[in-house]
């Protein structure tokens, strides 16, 4: 159940819980249930700083649920979560959450810049209007994801990939230290996927910690440093080399990592190569 990486993580977390260098995210004995049916059981891990971390598991494994529960968006049955050694309410400005793109109505009457500006709302007081610095930060965030020229575009006129980039720009505008992203690669074009990967690497270079719910087993090793294997329970959490192993993947996917899914993944991989020869 536990591997070296995870144990190390836990020890680091305990040692530093009181110090300045507390872990960006500690999850302790977290259990979550929907309609009294448990979907996450006794999850326990401590995230190291400055890593790109993939959350991987089969459909219904509770990957999104884990992120939502950590952010307090759905109630937990038991356990607790610490961000930088503190409660979420005390560290909101250091944490940015990127929901799945499909959870919002893209016909909403607003433009790309305005959506990105929403990332700054957490910094404003009750009646305070966005300041010039906030608008500037929003423009810079759009620039970083290559969407500056679409700033005033109505959001329904953006492609799926462009919408995802706007969501990421919004998270950048929050200027946080820990980012939790729910399936940012779902349904995006090859160019956007490459742009997101580049962005993740830039974020790591500037010391950010990024946790990403990820679907595509083929790319996990290329894109991320650490991996969290999840199937209702935490199967393993640690560095890619020691954790993303056949044995642990079999344990995560059970019988479901069958020939069929492998074939499907391979086909998708091939298609990507065709779309994007690089």
């Amino acid at each position, binding site marked *: 159940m536990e591997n070296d990486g995870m144990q190390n993580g836990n020890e680091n977390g305990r040692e530093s819980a009181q110090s300045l260098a507390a872990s960006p995210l500690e999850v302790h004995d977290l259990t979550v249930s929907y*309609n009294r049916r448990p*979907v996450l059981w006794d999850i326990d891990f401590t995230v190291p700083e400055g890593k790109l971390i993939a959350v991987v598991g089969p*459909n*219904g*494994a*509770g*990957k*999104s*649920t884990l992120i*939502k529960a950590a*952010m*307090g*968006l759905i109630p937990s049955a038991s356990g607790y979560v610490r961000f930088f050694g503190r409660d979420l*309410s005390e560290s*909101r400005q250091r*944490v*940015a*959450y990127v*929901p*799945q*793109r*499909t*959870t*919002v*109505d*893209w*016909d*909403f*009457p*607003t*433009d790309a810049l305005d*959506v990105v500006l*929403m*990332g700054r*709302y*957490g910094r*404003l007081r009750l*009646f305070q*209007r*966005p300041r010039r610095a906030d608008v500037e930060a929003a423009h810079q965030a759009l620039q970083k994801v290559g969407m500056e020229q679409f700033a005033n575009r*109505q959001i*329904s*006129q953006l492609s799926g990939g462009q919408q995802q980039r706007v969501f990421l720009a*919004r998270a950048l505008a929050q200027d946080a230290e820990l980012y939790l992203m729910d*399936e940012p690669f*779902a*349904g995006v074009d090859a160019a956007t996927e490459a742009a997101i990967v580049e962005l993740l690497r830039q974020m790591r270079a500037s010391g950010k910690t990024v946790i990403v719910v990820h679907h595509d087993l083929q790319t996990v090793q290329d894109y991320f440093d650490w991996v969290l294997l999840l199937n209702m329970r935490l199967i393993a959490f640690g560095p890619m080399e020691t954790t993303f192993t056949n044995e642990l993947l079999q344990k995560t996917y059970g019988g479901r990592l069958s020939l069929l899914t492998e074939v499907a993944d391979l086909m998708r991989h091939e298609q990507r190569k065709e779309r994007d020869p690089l």
Partner: protein
Amino acid sequence: MDLNAFWIILTGALAAGACALVGSFLVLRKMAMLGDAISHAVLPGIAIAFFLTGSRAPLPMLIGAGAIGVAASVMIEALHRNGKLQQDASIGITFTWLFAVGVILISLFAGAVDLDQDCVLYGEIAYVPLDVITTGGGISLGPRAVWVVGAVFLLNLLFVILFFRQLKIVSFDSALAASLGISTALWHYALVGMVSLTTVAAFESVGAILVVAMLIAPAATAYLLTDRLKRMLVLSVASGVLSAVGGYYLAALLDGSIAGAMAVVAGGQFALALAISSRRSGAGNPAFLSVPQLISNQHEKNL
């Protein structure tokens, strides 16, 4: 235009404008049916307030109806969450039940107070100029309804201007709002409370049933005509005002119900907007999605 016509149109326009401001957010949050529910559910609140005060004193009525509107939406949520009932079924049960209680209360108290079912259901905007506020010195300040509806219009305007960002972010992306520490429940019930107040203030002019038309139709019209939220709010108020003016003269022409004519004009504007709208290409509409898109959407919606 004689003075009576002026007061009637002004009342209708202020009521429609007040409805349009909060109705816009109902439309954007896909809660149009909640407006329907609240407008019916406040009926017992109106009846009880009438019974307790024996008059149409606006303040107790507004407070009572505001409270019962929020209570109705709490009941809808409770039936949905704890009772495991579909959202639309819980809305259906809550508002028909409360509405029925209101109908009984009104029929019970009809003799005791100046209130009848027709006036509550269909409004009596034609009589608005008759109920005038006069000062101690005998100076007329204009119809009481204008003051009540005008006050609620200003209140809604203030609500929407002061809390524009909160209402927008909670309507567009409630998950992000919650992650930023902006309470989605607080703003949900604040909006529901304002819709309840507005409904009560407007029911005299357009009636409890047609107030739904004013909550939804001008907002839906504006939604079709622009892709910016601020413009949508301005256009929805404009469409509401136009409905009041147009409705008055349509009713005069037909010699029919003024409130009915106002709602018909509001619906006519929506049909016109639908015909000329270029913005809604159907990109986000499931009816326009291809089968592979639907499958990939479904795929993305997993846990």
